């Protein structure tokens, strides 16, 4: 009991620390720096401590200090309760969804069974969808309560877009659920031992559709019409400043990480290395004794998982800095007329193949 409690707290602290302490601040830097490198620029590199700029790594720090010391402003005529609540509603789902994503397998260490996921729910994927759908309220309420036309338009667009893409996202994932026959993310991850059992090979169409829908759910370019800064200032968070602004900002980046985690778990073999099975690694680490070798295996798996996550973060950043924004009608058309039928066809073909096997 005591060991389990410690294990649970350790896992929560680990995920929370990785997300809030590493990914959330570093992604701001990554976005600026990667876009700079992609566009033959240099990027932010001026903030320094005693002359050390650390290739711009201090910029997230200075940004945070600057934003936190700004005035927290609530516009006149705004609904104060919802205006304050909206950023929290945005941030919470982004933090919570990582609870069901496994970042490693199950290991026996010192006679204690360690399952590297915070909550091993039976309805894992549905849990993610449930909380992803709640993120909509954050942006919709933010837009509505700000008493600003731009915000309001952004909120409306966010509602329409996220509602549409939720449907498509749900359907695009059904294929992979059918193939693995489980909603449990740990089981799905455990099944992708072999390279050719990875979801991306079994469901290539589902992969592309899911990634598209997930980016659309996250409201990032090319699906960023709710916050299109060339059209409606900053969309639903136009009227936000200080801590609340940074919360929207963090929610977006954490969702990038979460999407990468989900995609890794579902389609890219979760914590498994390609071509190298767990047993092989275990025998490779045999020199360290029975318990330590399992710890080493665990660390390898965690590293593998996060390497894949980082790859997907890079991919999403590349997409974000490559593609231009879609128009509103194009987004709706893409969601309802292309992705939805494609997902249905994907389900149909998956079912057919499974039936004929």
């Amino acid at each position, binding site marked *: 009991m005591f060991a389990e409690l410690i294990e649970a707290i350790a896992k929560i602290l680990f995920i929370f620390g990785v997300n809030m302490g590493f990914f959330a601040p570093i992604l701001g830097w990554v976005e600026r720096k990667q876009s700079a490198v992609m566009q033959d620029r240099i990027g932010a590199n001026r903030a320094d401590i005693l002359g050390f700029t650390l290739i711009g790594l201090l910029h997230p720090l200075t940004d945070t200090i600057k934003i936190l010391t700004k005035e927290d402003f609530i516009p006149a005529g705004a609904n104060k309760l919802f205006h304050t609540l909206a950023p929290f509603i945005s941030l919470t789902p982004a933090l919570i969804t990582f609870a069901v994503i496994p970042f490693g397998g199950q290991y026996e260490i010192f006679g204690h069974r360690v399952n590297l996921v915070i909550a091993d729910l039976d309805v894992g994927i549905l849990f993610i969808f449930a909380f992803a759908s709640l993120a909509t309220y954050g942006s919709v309420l933010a837009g509505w309560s700000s008493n600003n036309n731009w915000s309001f338009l952004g909120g409306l667009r966010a509602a329409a877009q996220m509602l549409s893409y939720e449907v498509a996202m749900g359907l695009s994932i059904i294929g992979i659920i059918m193939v693995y026959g489980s909603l449990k993310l740990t089981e799905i991850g455990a099944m992708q031992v072999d390279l050719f059992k990875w979801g991306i090979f079994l469901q290539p169409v589902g992969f*592309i559709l899911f990634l598209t829908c997930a980016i659309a759910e996250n409201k990032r370019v090319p699906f960023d019409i709710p916050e299109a800064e060339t059209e409606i200032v900053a969309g639903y968070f136009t009227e936000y400043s200080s801590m609340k602004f940074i919360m929207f900002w963090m929610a977006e980046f954490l969702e990038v990480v979460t999407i990468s985690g989900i995609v890794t778990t579902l389609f890219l073999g979760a914590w498994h290395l390609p071509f190298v099975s767990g047993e092989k690694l275990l025998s490779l680490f045999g020199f360290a004794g029975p318990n330590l070798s399992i710890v080493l295996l665990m660390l390898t798996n965690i590293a593998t998982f996060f390497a894949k996550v980082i790859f997907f973060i890079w991919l999403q950043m590349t997409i974000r800095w*490559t593609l231009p924004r879609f128009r509103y009608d194009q987004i709706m058309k893409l969601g309802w007329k292309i992705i939805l039928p494609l997902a249905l066809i994907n389900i149909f073909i998956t079912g057919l193949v499974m039936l004929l096997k």
Partner: protein
Amino acid sequence: MSYELNYTVGSIPLDKLKPKKVRKNIELTLWERLYIPEIARGMIVTTRHFIVNMVGFIFPPEGKKRKIFTVYYPEEKLTIHVAYRGRPVLVQREDGKEKCIACGLCERICPAFAISIIGGERQRGNDMERYPVSYTLDMSRCVYCGLCEEVCPYEAIVMSNEYEGLAEYDRENMIYPKEKLLVPVAKLQKRIEYVRKIYGKSNYDLRNMI
């Protein structure tokens, strides 16, 4: 006197340039309408830049400068072309007096009402000449349009190439008196010649005729 600008695009002069064929009313091919391959193509381009620059960051090629366009502003500065419209300045004659005759044309033309002149007369040799007793330029209003320069019959006010130190914390500091505006004519020679060319002013520079 006419002046011909010889524009070039790259190394090709303008009149030799052939118009590029522009696709209007694009009908996408099936391959393009699939969209995914085109996205992949675009991403390959950006990824190639990413990788090339990444390698360039880690192992900077010697001798050859990296293909990065960023200018480290305070340390590096771009050379300003003579056509650049910076801070408007009054031309100072060799004898230290201003060239301006306080005709008030610039005050009249200024769209932002930034200029205000009080004129007066003073002795020059045997003649009397008009001069501005005070010439104030409100830099918080100036829009750098260059109309004062265009309208000035005596080439007394020109746009310099200064663009630094124009921001202030106090509006009082942004009202420039005559003393702050005067710049020796030697420094502005290039710009004056350029102004003569583009506005054809050399035809009626009365001062030179006299």
